[in-house]
């Protein structure tokens, strides 16, 4: 699968309180959560993000809490994938468990807000459409691919229960 989208750029160590502040965790309704996505990092994000946009971060994206509300908010906001130099571990597993594509790429400094990227999930190749330069991402381990292809962890479990 291939997507094309516009970059929203954030820095290093984007924590889960920035992705979805705890004050909104009295609900798990995806639509409600999406309204406040990235609010404390960029209050204009939720109202201006459009479908298939891409969040780009630096190192340690998603650090902090275990809240699955973070990938839920991002996914529901319409974001097609998150690309970062690296991910905090609970955010990483949550994203796979729920089917939010995330990619690790060392070159995210080169992707600025507003830039357009084309991302091929099968090969992991990213093309920066402004100058057609290409970048590779870290391959997704086979077990995680299996999770994604089953449609997330719960689908995987449901298959096993049958």
């Amino acid at each position, binding site marked *: 699968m291939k997507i094309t989208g516009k970059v929203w750029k954030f820095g290093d160590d984007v924590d889960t*309180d920035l992705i979805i*502040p705890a004050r909104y*965790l009295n*609900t*798990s309704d995806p639509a409600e959560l999406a309204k406040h996505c990235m609010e404390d990092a960029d209050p204009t994000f939720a109202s201006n993000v459009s479908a298939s946009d891409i969040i780009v971060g630096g190192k340690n994206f998603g650090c902090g809490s275990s809240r699955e509300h973070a990938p839920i908010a991002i996914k529901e906001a319409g974001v097609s994938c998150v690309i970062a130099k690296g991910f905090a*571990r*609970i955010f990483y597993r949550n994203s796979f468990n729920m089917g939010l594509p995330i990619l690790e790429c060392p070159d995210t400094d080169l992707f600025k807000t507003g830039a357009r990227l084309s991302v091929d999930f099968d090969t992991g190749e990213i093309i920066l459409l402004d100058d057609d330069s290409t970048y590779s991402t870290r391959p997704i*381990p086979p*077990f995680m691919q299996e999770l994604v292809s089953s449609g997330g962890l719960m689908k995987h479990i449901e298959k096993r229960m049958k």
Partner: protein
Amino acid sequence: MGMTITEKILARHSGSDSVKPGDLINATVDIALGNDITAPIAIDQFEKSGAKEVFDKDRVILVPDHFVPNKDIQSAMQAKMLRDFAGKHDLTHFFDAGEMGVEHALLPEKGLVLPGDLVIGADSHTCTYGGLGAFATGVGSTDLAAAMITGEVWLKVPESIKFIYNGRLPQWVEGKDLILYTIGDIGVDGALYQAMELTGPVIDTLSMAGRLTMANMAIEAGAKNGIFIPDDITEAYVSTRAQREYTFLTSDDDAVYVRTIEYDVGNIEPQIACPHLPENTKGVSEIGDITIDQVVIGSCTNGRIEDMRSAAAILKGRKVAKGTRLIVIPATPLVYRTALEEGLFEVFLDAGGILSPPTCGPCLGGHMGILAKGERAVATTNRNFVGRMGHPESEVYLANPSVAAASAILGKIGGPDQLG
């Protein structure tokens, strides 16, 4: 090849003789934990999957502690979801109202998590139980849902980093300062995906409270887990509480570590983590003049009876500075009662503090002490991210309980040595 304690626990729970870093395993869990924020999503998924019952009603634990006593209608609905689920599945360990405490303070205190266990919790600070010599790690709600059904979790075996703490702890320096100092040194991703094994002569005499505080903050360095080798101090703590068998494991002499980091603690002073990351640490003497509006003493990091005692020892016979609000939150009903019986409530109240029932409350900006725009707090909690305790333009400084208490008296950040 030798194994670390982390690898041994993971091997035992995945039915193999040995595992090595990088292995993906399916492991059985001893305990699966959820709270009022994360469990509602897990319960939804559980119901949607068509599962009829939990894998073991003694081993699924639900603790509504974040937004309770219910702070608003939506929070009340979330807590009710847990209550209803616990009732329907007859969960043995559901802690409500007068039994409710901050989960990571409550479970060790009740002997529900034990040395040698594999514990997962849909809460990042589940890593606290490494203080007991368990493998414990935070996961998401979907992982919790899956574990509630199957009693299993998928895990990648982490590499281990060995930390060795040498020397003698100076006065006012405790577990909190050691872990803040360590995070300041290695950074918030310094142990990403890895196990932090905390050892050395200083650790050998560190109290269980200090160990739980240190393991609690392993996640603030990005670690999968923090872990201590269980010993006599562990035995004294768990033997009176445990209601099932437990196992003391240790790392082999030829176990493999990706790094070994040694510290001499003799020159460490009480640490302050400045906004907005736990790695922004400084010694309290280097902090300068920073006035504060609020002090919070509590949380799964430092809300135990030892922490109440440290704070009270500083506050006794003194008054909180005018214009500073002191909020004390004993983390569990037992801590609350013990503090009351030991006369600590009187000390806090005489000093001008407020006492809250056990709850996470302001730690994550829930309720019971939210900061306004531009306000600053010193807290014994574990995170100082943007907006963590309230307004996005408020600030949180992390410290140990004696420093927090001294700061309340001074009206600015400072250590006990600065009190007259």
